[in-house]
């Protein structure tokens, strides 16, 4: 793959990866977004070969799904495979093989770990006295350092390794990073709980009854897990509605 190919059309493909979910649907999932992102690279690879270009576009708008950030790995690798001239069936098989792992790794690392940990850092900072705009800026900077870093790494790892990208993914040790982040996340969770309990205008100021109810809610979440989230939100909304109604008819 030539340097100019890598530097221009590949960069355009990388930038378009930020739109990969813009046509999310239950038929092709992020497949059509994947095709949109591939267009600049494919145009370059199949320059002067319109029939092959159209066929390549068609196979890249087919069904595909992965975590949106780690989909950049598949984008880079698919671009490399197309540039290497492998058969369409090989490209299809590669994409089918990587979509599951890229989805699972990304969901665990980003949605279930990185996002809540950074959110908790920002909320705890706010509760400990950091001005709101600074807390929001801290959140955006921290989160997007990881987010954009992951996208850049994934895309160039895919582009460099092609079908051997699995080795790069294994070497990156995402599962170990996830576990490590979760360990630190528990410390952050404790800091946040302490800040909400002891901070100005927090549960400590609300009174012992509210602090006890919050502790009960915490225990419920810990024991039951995600199943209790929706009922708890409904219960809070119902309590607010009842109190407001009672207040207005009193």
């Amino acid at each position, binding site marked *: 793959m030539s340097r100019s190919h890598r530097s221009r059309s590949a960069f355009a493909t990388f930038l378009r990866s930020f*739109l990969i*979910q813009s*046509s*999310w649907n239950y038929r092709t999932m992020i497949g059509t977004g994947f095709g949109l992102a591939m267009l600049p690279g494919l145009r370059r690879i199949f320059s002067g070969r319109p029939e092959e270009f159209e066929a390549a576009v068609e196979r890249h708008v087919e069904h595909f799904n992965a975590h949106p950030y780690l989909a950049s790995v598949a984008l880079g690798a698919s671009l490399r495979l197309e540039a290497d001239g492998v058969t369409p069936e090989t490209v299809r098989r590669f994409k089918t093989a990587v979509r599951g792992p890229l989805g699972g790794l990304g969901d665990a690392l980003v949605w279930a770990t990185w996002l809540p940990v950074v*959110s908790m850092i920002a909320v705890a900072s706010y509760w400990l006295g950091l001005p709101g705009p600074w807390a929001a800026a801290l959140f955006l900077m921290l989160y997007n350092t990881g987010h954009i870093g992951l996208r850049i790494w994934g895309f160039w790892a895919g582009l460099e390794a092609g079908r051997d990208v699995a080795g790069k993914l294994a070497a990156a040790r995402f599962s170990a990073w996830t576990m490590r982040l979760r360990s630190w996340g528990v410390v952050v969770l404790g800091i946040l709980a302490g800040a909400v309990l002891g901070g100005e205008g927090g549960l400590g100021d*609300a009174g012992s009854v509210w602090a006890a109810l919050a502790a009960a809610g*915490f225990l419920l979440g810990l024991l039951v897990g995600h199943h209790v989230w929706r009922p708890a939100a409904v219960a809070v909304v119902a309590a607010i509605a009842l109190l407001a109604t009672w207040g207005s008819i009193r």
Partner: protein
Amino acid sequence: MSLLGLSALGGAIGLDGTSVGQFMVSRPLVAGLLTGWAVGDPMLGMAIGMVLELYLLVSFPTGGSRFPEGATATVVAVGSCAGVEGGGALALAVAVGLVWGHVGGLSITWLRRLNGRLVPGEEGPRPSVTDIVLLHVCTIGLDFLRGAAVVFGGLLVGRTVVGQMAPFWPLGPGGSVGLVLIGGAVSLGILLRDFGGFRQNRLRLAVGLGLGLLGAQLL
């Protein structure tokens, strides 16, 4: 800011949730600040955004799952209680935001079904580059309109509910905050479970709790 202005803001912030970038400008703590600035009360926006952020800590936009939409929910919550007097405004706004988050989540499901009708089918003609680019312009535009419509409807309902009921709210400021934080505490419990549970993490949790309490006293 007018109803239409806030709706446009909601539509724009909502795009970040799925369609464009996912830089997490759509998270309640950022959306709350932006809406607070728009209505001239950033402190109120931050307060509501932080509470809703606690609720949505364990709500992830994974795959095809239906999840409450934080961006439109926060714009609706902050826009509903801006300028409203009475101690209940915060609690009522959080309640409106939680309900409207699910409306937003439902609207995302509808949009995804609609997108499914717009994307090229396997049996149809081979899609051209123009078809693909226009499809994405169209789906991004639809997502913007969806977010704006959700916020518009939410503000009509939310402003009425909060405006009518806030003056009669029976709890003081401490009780109001305590009530809305119960749901946030549930989210923290769920997150501790996700991160390995209490037994495995009790020392780290205790260290964090101690640091948090100490920080709250010192800072």
